[in-house]
Each structure stands twice: as C-alpha cells, then as structure tokens.
C-alpha cells in the first residue's frame, strides 16, 4: 500500500490521432513540475500517476498549476485481491470527514469478481457501519469515495481542481508585452493556458522608472513561470524613444505613437524568439489608447496576430482573475511603469491614422528601434 497522486487531464481527451503527442508533452511537464520533489511520474489507463514524492502538498500545488491538468486526487494504491482490506481502508479515509457521502466505483479489470454496483454497495455498507457519524446521500453527497479497480485498487476522496487548458508548447509561441500592471500578466496566463509558450517584452524608462519597477516586472514573470516554466524577459530601454516622441509629436498622440513603437519592437523580438503572435493586456475602452480606433492604429504596424484575451473583460473581472493566478499583489505595488509617466493630459480617443503617420515621419524610427534592440537585456526566470 502506498500514497500517490492521481492526475486527470482535460481537453487532451478530445484529440484524435495526435493525442500521443499532447500526452507526451503533458507527462513531460508534470515530470518537470515535480522534479525537485523526487516524484516518479507515469502514464497508464488514461491517467497520470505521481508517486515517491517527498512532500505531497507541494506536489499537489505544483501539479495543479500544470496546463492541461484537469484535477488531482491524493489516492491510496493497494492490492485489489483482498476486498475486505479495501473496505477497511475506505472507512479509514472517510472517518475524519463529516456530513454525507457516497461511494463511486469503476472497474477496468472486468475479471474482478465484483462489478461496479456491487463494489459501491458493499463498500458503502461497510463505511456506514464502521463510521456511524456519516450518512449516505447518493444525489448531493458532501464527499465521494472513489474506488477504481485497475492493475491495483485506487482509493481517493479529495479532488483538487487544476488550471485546465492545454499542455505547454503544443500551440506555438507568443510574445507578451508585460507592463507591470494588472492586465498583462492575466492576458499572458490566458494564452499560455492554451498551450502557448510565452516570452515577454518589458519597456524600461530609466530614470523615469526605478530599479524597483523593473524588479516588479521580473517578479511577475517569475510568478507566471510557476505555470509556464522558464520565461525569457527582454528588458528594452525605452527612454530615448519616449523623449523623442514627447519632443517632436503632438501631445494628444504621444501615447498612441509610443504604443506603435512598442508593437514594432515586440514584433522584432518575437520573430527572433520564433514566436508567431503578440499578446497584450488591452481591454476595449479601458483607457484612451484602448478605444477601437486606437487599437486599430496600433495594429496597423504589426505583421502578426495580436492576441488580447482580456479585451471583453471588466476591470473587476480581470482583478478577480489576477487574484486567482496570484499576480495581483505584485501588480498592485506602487512603482510607476513607463506607460503612466508620459501620459498626455488629453489623449486622442478618436485618432486619425494619417496624422500619426505624419507625426512619425519626424522620428528616425530605424535608428531608434535598432538602438533600443541593441540595449535590450535578456533575463531568464523560472
């Protein structure tokens, strides 16, 4: 008899002929997640099993953060031949619980002398008899004792929901514009969850933003790496571009022109990284640069898809999501990022793209972008 984790996967089930590819990736990621905890990981009977770990709680925490995992249950594995012993073990596991329960059974070993309804009946009766403070409720039980008969018998009560999504690296790679605010980490998380590998770009405006602002962004990337594995962050020096824009362009357009430069540089970095799309934390109408016309103006300079997964979410919904993911506290630290510091008093909400193009002619774009890319520092986290 030993303790292990039973890991269920979600959407990968829906895959057809390429399911083995997805599963292989998923098992790899689970293995990576528990590697520091000495866990052994294998795939069998449509489940992933994790055993031989040093710290079960840490293991659960990490596995539930692997994209593609649906849920995790701590389980007991035992010999299946002695049904009496199985019932005893089930009763032992139920004893500390309160309220109502039912027993569920699944039998993939069809030669097993008891069929599923019989297992449920027998084990349920045993528990009821030996744990008198529990009652049976087959419709809305507080607890479900799951007994599975496979190569061994597996007993589990608790089921911890995981993040879901698709295994990391099964859907290409995208480059996230990470500002330090609340929205962009959520946006990155949502796309990463679909199996997309992530790299990040951050624009740093020293001395207008401090070392702490940079540290904050790296911390956010590290928090995302809990889910996505290693993340590379490209820290781009952006002050010169902002100063030039501020000096030479009409004030009400400075933010939008700045956004366009951010997109241009991000695209260059994305191509170098082998990424096929950009991700931003924009939400329609949230600020002046996120009106529909403004978004159109920023998209005009990008030659690859721009994903904006929080586009239709309210701020409160984004915050809720950030809290779930665990990035909210860091995002709320007060250090200014480069977007808030150069904000014009009256930014254009209905910009005209020909005016923007004209304003940009005053800037030596090529030189500015190359200089920013030359000065870019790459930090790897996770």
């Amino acid at each position, binding site marked *: 008899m030993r303790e292990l984790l039973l890991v269920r996967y979600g959407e990968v089930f829906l895959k057809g002929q390429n399911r083995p590819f997805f599963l292989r990736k998923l098992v790899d990621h689970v293995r990576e997640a528990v590697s520091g905890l000495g866990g052994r990981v294998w795939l069998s009977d449509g489940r992933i099993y994790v055993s031989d770990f040093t710290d079960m709680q840490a293991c659960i925490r990490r596995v539930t953060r692997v994209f593609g995992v649906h849920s995790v249950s701590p389980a007991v594995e035992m010999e299946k031949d002695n049904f009496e012993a199985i019932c005893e073990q089930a009763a032992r596991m139920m004893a500390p619980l309160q309220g109502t329960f039912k027993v569920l059974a699944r039998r993939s070993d069809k030669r097993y002398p008891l069929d599923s309804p019989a297992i449920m009946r027998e084990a349920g009766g045993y528990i009821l008899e030996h744990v008198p403070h529990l009652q049976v409720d087959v419709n809305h039980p507080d607890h479900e004792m799951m007994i599975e008969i496979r190569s061994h018998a597996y007993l589990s009560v608790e089921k911890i929901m995981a993040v879901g999504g698709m295994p990391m690296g099964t859907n290409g790679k995208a480059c996230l514009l990470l500002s330090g605010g609340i929205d962009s980490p959520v946006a990155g998380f949502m796309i990463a969850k679909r199996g997309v590998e992530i790299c990040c770009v951050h624009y740093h405006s*020293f*001395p*207008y*933003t*401090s*070392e702490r602002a940079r540290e904050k962004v790296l911390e956010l990337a590290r928090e995302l790496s809990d889910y996505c594995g290693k993340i590379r962050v490209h820290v781009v020096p952006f002050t010169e571009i902002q*100063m030039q824009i*501020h*000096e030479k362009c009409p*004030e009400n357009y400075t933010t939008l022109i700045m956004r366009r430069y951010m997109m241009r540089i991000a695209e260059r970095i994305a191509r170098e990284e082998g990424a096929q799309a950009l991700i931003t934390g924009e939400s329609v109408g949230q600020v002046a640069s996120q009106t529909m016309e403004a978004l159109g103006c920023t998209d005009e300079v990008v030659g690859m898809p721009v994903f904006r997964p929080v586009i239709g979410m309210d701020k409160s919904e984004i915050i809720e999501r950030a809290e779930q993911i665990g990035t909210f506290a860091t995002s709320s630290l*007060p250090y*200014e990022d480069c977007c808030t510091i*150069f904000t014009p008093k009256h930014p254009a909400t209905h910009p005209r793209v020909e005016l923007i193009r004209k304003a940009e002619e005053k800037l030596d774009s090529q030189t500015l972008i190359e200089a920013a890319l030359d000065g870019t520092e790459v930090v790897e986290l996770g």
Partner: protein
Amino acid sequence: MIYLDNSATTRPFDSVIETMARCMRETYFNASAAYRPAVEVERAIRACRQAIAAQVGAQEEEVYFTSGGTESDNLAILGVASLLRQPANFVCSAIEHPAVLETIRRVESMGHEVRVMPINRFGVVDLEACASLIDEHTALVSCMQVSNETGAIQPVEQIARLARAKNKNVRVHVDGVQGFMRVPMQMERMGVDLYSLSGHKIHGPKGIGALVVKKGVRLAPQMTGGGQEKNLRSGTYDSPAILGLHQAVLEMGQRRAEIDRLRAMKARLWSQLAKAEGVRLNGLPVDDPCSAPHVLSVSFEGVRGEVMRNALEGAGILVSTGSACASHKQKVSATLRAMGLSTEQADGTIRISLGMMNTMEEMDEAAAQMIALHKQLQAFRRR
C-alpha cells in the same frame, strides 16, 4: 558609488564588524549564564551601557537595550499608556517618524486623546502652539530630536520646560534616532525622561538600539519572558549587536571633531547647488545652529524627486526621496506640505544625508552630477 543616504542607514565601521565577528566566534555565551565566560560578556554589555549613558547625560542603569528605534519608541509610548488608569492626552509633533505616530494612534484607540504640535515653515515645532496643547491631563509629550526629512533640530529642551511648567507629572520622550551622537543630548539638564536611539544610524549594527529611561519613570513592559533588563525588556542579550553598538559609540566619540566636518560637507554641497537655478533648500539655512550637520532636503524645480533619485542612481549616487521609510508609499510628504511647499515642490524633493565615511570630494562630484542631471531632466517635462 557615493552613498548619501545615511539617514536610512549607515555602513558599519570596520571596527564594528570585527568586534561583532569576534563576539560571535569567541564570546558567544549567554550573558545571563552563571559561568565565567558569560560573566565576561555581561561585563562587556555593561561597558556599552556606560558608554551610551555618558553620551546622553544619564546613568548606566538607565539604559535598556532594545531591537532599535522602533521598539524603543513603542516601549516608551505604550509603556506609559499601559499604566494609565484614566483617559489622558498624548502630545506629539506633526513630523514624527511612523514608529511614534502609528504608536500614538494605537494609544488613541485605547481611549486617550492625541494632540499634535504643528510646525513652522522651517520644519520646527511651533512652541506657542505647543504650550497651548499641554495641560494637567497630558501623560506624555513626544518629540523627535532631529527631523529625518529636513534635518531640523527640534527645541526639545524648551518643550520639556513648557510641559513641566504646565504639568509636573508629564513624561517627555525624545526620539533621538537621527540625532544621537551627531547632535548633543543631556537628558538630565534638558529635562528628557525617555530617549530612543538606534545603532545602525551611527555606523553600528542594525537590529540594536536602546531606550534610556530616567530613574523614577515607570513603564509597563511590552514583552514578557526571562526578565532581562530589570523585567522591562525580556529576551536573550544580543551580545554581538550590543558589542558592535559599543564599538560604534566609541569610534563616533573618538571622531567627535568630525561632526564639524559633516557640517562643512553639507555647507559645501549646498553652496554648490545654490549656484544653480531652480534648486531650493527646504527648512533652515545650512549654517543655522538648529540645522543638523548631516541632513539636507533639496527640491529641484520641474523634476520629480523619484526621477532625480533614479537618475542619480544611474550616475552612482544613492539618495532618497523624502525619507526611505515613507518613500515606498509614494505620498507627498506631509512635513514638506506643512512647511508651505507646493505639491509640485514637495514632489520634487530629495533627501541627502551624510555619514562619517563621506568626503569633501564626494560633495563636489555629487553637486556637479545633480546640477547636470537637473538641467538634462528639466528640459524634458510634462507640457
């Protein structure tokens, strides 16, 4: 690197580091134990008590070791408040460090009244207003010795005298964290009952400080345990830190003449900055006897203090905006606003604070960098 943030903390003297390392390696014994090596540690701790007492005009048995300025302030205020049987009032200045201000707020929630002494445009407590606040129900008056934001030396002696004249039972507490060993303190003569000090502001270790309590002043302990420090502050003696503090006090004492050097450096720095346009000194003139020798508050027109600080960091010069304890809160300093600065001026302020390890050359270099960066950054401002 030029380190000009000595009011946040100082680099320990080499002699302090050596003393502490030796103590951890060789005389690590619990000072309360019965065997001989422990007795020797106790003797060394006593020597530190004597050294501190000599600096502040007190007796050795009046020195109580704590974990630093914050704990000393808490112990002084809560120690007085906990013994009160009836509602009373507590008076403090408007510019106290959060260690005092937040503790006084706690006292308020215990049912006592809090009265705040306003400051004038030089950042000095207004004595007239102060006199009207103290009455027969005042339990404690607390005022810092030196403002951590502007370096203004506060008239604690006059405040103590005023307070006593109104109420002979009043207790006078002085938070001396920014003043200890840089500005004179004679508790007996000045009428101070309770004095907080900290080790790491005088090139000693962090995590050690003391509260000096005049004989006859009763305090309720805020920590219970093994009964160290005559039951007022339980906890095993942090002997490496206490010995380190002792060494710092000794070296500061030997280098007493250098306090004038600090003052000269401050004057030199300001004389350079004053030549540039759009640079404002906040508070008292640098040669005013009430201006502490080591703290300088300066506003740069048209440049936010935070941006100036970052830019100076880029040039290898470390300063802080306002005071480090408050700078992560990103609020405009209440002290500076109370001194009549506009929000923009207050927002454009940095604090420069000197220590024994700074040199005159550093002042010239820092001033030149500040002026150059100010010009550069000023050219580029919000339209």
